[in-house]
């Protein structure tokens, strides 16, 4: 019949390892959650402060702090082995690498592209789209 008997080494493992992982005090969890909420409010708040070119960097900075909080406390990286931090940071670097190369490329060929709205998007805009994210209407481009 089906394989149900646990192999000897997994049985041995079950005894020498605690059944529950590391426990984080509720106080820390709640303060982390509070910090995340506060940062969310700040994210919305800075939307009203225009620092020009740095807008995006401010937003990304706040997001990085939030992600770091989640990884450190909610994902227990603070109490895990340092190797896990290394893996986490390493994987993040791969994401950065991918995005950076893609952005570098698109920024290089951007000026070879046509300006204005693409035809299908324009169709939608011309028809009816008062609150559409793309606010530049054909009339504006032609002017």
């Amino acid at each position, binding site marked *: 019949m089906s394989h149900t008997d646990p192999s000897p080494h997994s049985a041995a493992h079950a005894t020498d390892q605690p059944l529950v992982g590391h426990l984080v005090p509720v106080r820390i969890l709640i303060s982390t959650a509070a910090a995340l909420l506060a940062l969310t409010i700040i994210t919305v708040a800075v939307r009203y402060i225009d620092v020009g070119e740095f807008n995006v960097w401010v937003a990304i900075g706040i997001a990085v702090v939030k992600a770091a909080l989640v990884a450190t406390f909610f994902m227990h990286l603070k109490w895990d082995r340092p190797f896990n931090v290394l893996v986490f940071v390493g994987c993040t670097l791969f994401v950065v690498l991918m995005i950076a190369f*893609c952005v570098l490329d698109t920024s290089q060929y951007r000026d070879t592209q046509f300006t204005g709205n693409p035809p299908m*998007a324009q169709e939608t805009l011309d028809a009816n789209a008062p609150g559409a994210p793309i606010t530049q209407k054909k009339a504006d481009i032609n002017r």
Partner: protein
Amino acid sequence: MTTLDAPRHDILDTTATGDNYLTHSRGFLSWALTLDHKRIGVMYMVAVLCSFFLGGVFALLLRTELLTPGRTIVDADTYNQFFTLHGAIMVFLVIIPSIPAALGNFVLPIMLGAKDVAFPRLNLASFYLWIGGAIFTLYSLAVGGFDTGWTFDTPYSTTTTAGGVIPVLMGVFILGFSSIFTGLNFIVTIHKLRPPGMTWFKMPLFLWALYSTALIQVLATPVLAITLCLLIVERTLNIGIFNPSMGGDPVLYQHFFWFYSHPAVYIMIVPAMGIISEIIAVHSHRHIFGYTYIAFSSVAIAMFSFIVWGHHMFTSGQSGVMNTIFSLISFSVGIPSAVKTFNWVMTLYKGTISLTAPMCYGLAFLFLFTIGGLTGLHCATLATDVHLHDTYFVVAHFHYVMMGSALIAMIGGLHHWWPKMTGRMYHEGTGIAGCIIIFVGFNMTFFTQFMLGSQGMPRRYYDYQPEFQTYHIVSTIGAYIMAAGFVTTAVCLMQSLMSGRRAPANPWGGRSLEWQCASPPRHDNFEHPPTVGDCYDFTPVVWDERQQGYVVDRALDTHIPHGKSPNTGGHQ
């Protein structure tokens, strides 16, 4: 000689009582719900070989269509579906899972000296995800098929009217998770389940290769999943990520797709290189040359593989700056690949080569991989690639790497570990004959395509100029010969299952741990914890007439300190 008698006695006992992983429990559910890595590996192998048959049928159909210009057997739209299906099946259902999930699952824990992988249930889940992905792929055929090519390039894939595009994208999405599960399992297994004495640099090179592969699987496959999700969303909701008429960027799609799919090429070839390291060392009975170089070159290839994806996009509209960067880095991949090749050749040099079927596949690999690898340099060179891009030259190049190298290594590995998996020997002559026929057919099929491509025949075309016809005919005949070779091999292996001679524990004279357990292995792999020695030191491996196989005479081993009992503790 007491040291020699003890292990030999164990091996004879386990073979005689017949309790092995195949007979340990019976019935359909004992397989369908098994957590045994060996059974999961065997199920994967059967599933992958069935898909290989299907993909092969499509290959023969499309080669037949190309016998004459214009219509030969099917119309153009059907032909588009044929090459798409051939590509998608061979890449996602066959080659990617073939070595890690099928052979790797079977061999990795035994080679490591462990009883199973770290997460047996995840392992089984991975197999069922594969089944799910395969069902979706087949379902897509029922609802209109897909003709996008296996790369699903936008904007064609977002606008084609073929009805099966979304199901197959779902299928590939699911297959990706199957691949991630396998990779994750292997990483944790190699980190956590190494028995005492099995240090990183005592691991067989196949394990280094599987480890590097697993890194790629875990790091790259999620990107494919996200990309395909975006493509589904684009196709259903028209949100304008990749579709230019909605303001999207099709080149961005290629960036995302190739960020996975170039590393995917190394998911295919790196484990194949691992198999070749094993085959070449074991069958030439000589210590592998440059162990650490081969080990680290696997990791180096895995790392490099993430920063070269743009070489698939030289003519896509990618910017000149990125073209130059990607071209430069792509050349650097040649270095670790060449390091491996030279080390294998050095291992053969002055070795005592047994020309067994696995060794024939190993030698075929060396030959074909050299051609496949070197023609890669033509494709990585910016100026020549503008001419060669999307021609049969590229088709020939990647078939030399993906089929001539990865699949040949897989079939070689299948022969190499066949006695271990099934407990039966195959007929050596038939096996070698199969290998030679495949080798001849392969070169006929694909070498001609280098000529076709350099003369300007574009890939994926239904029709062509009459002057190309001679090459196409030779190529198609080669494909038929290759098919005959695979049939020969299949007959050889089937015959072995029915009436093959019982395999000894160590038929080839291998030294790594999988040869120190019975053929087929017990349910829990080892009766006693095996002793870890230098897995490429073949001096203590001696022929034993009684077993018709090799045994490891520990008295001759200079690496194991004598008078000390083998370690028996738990895992670190």
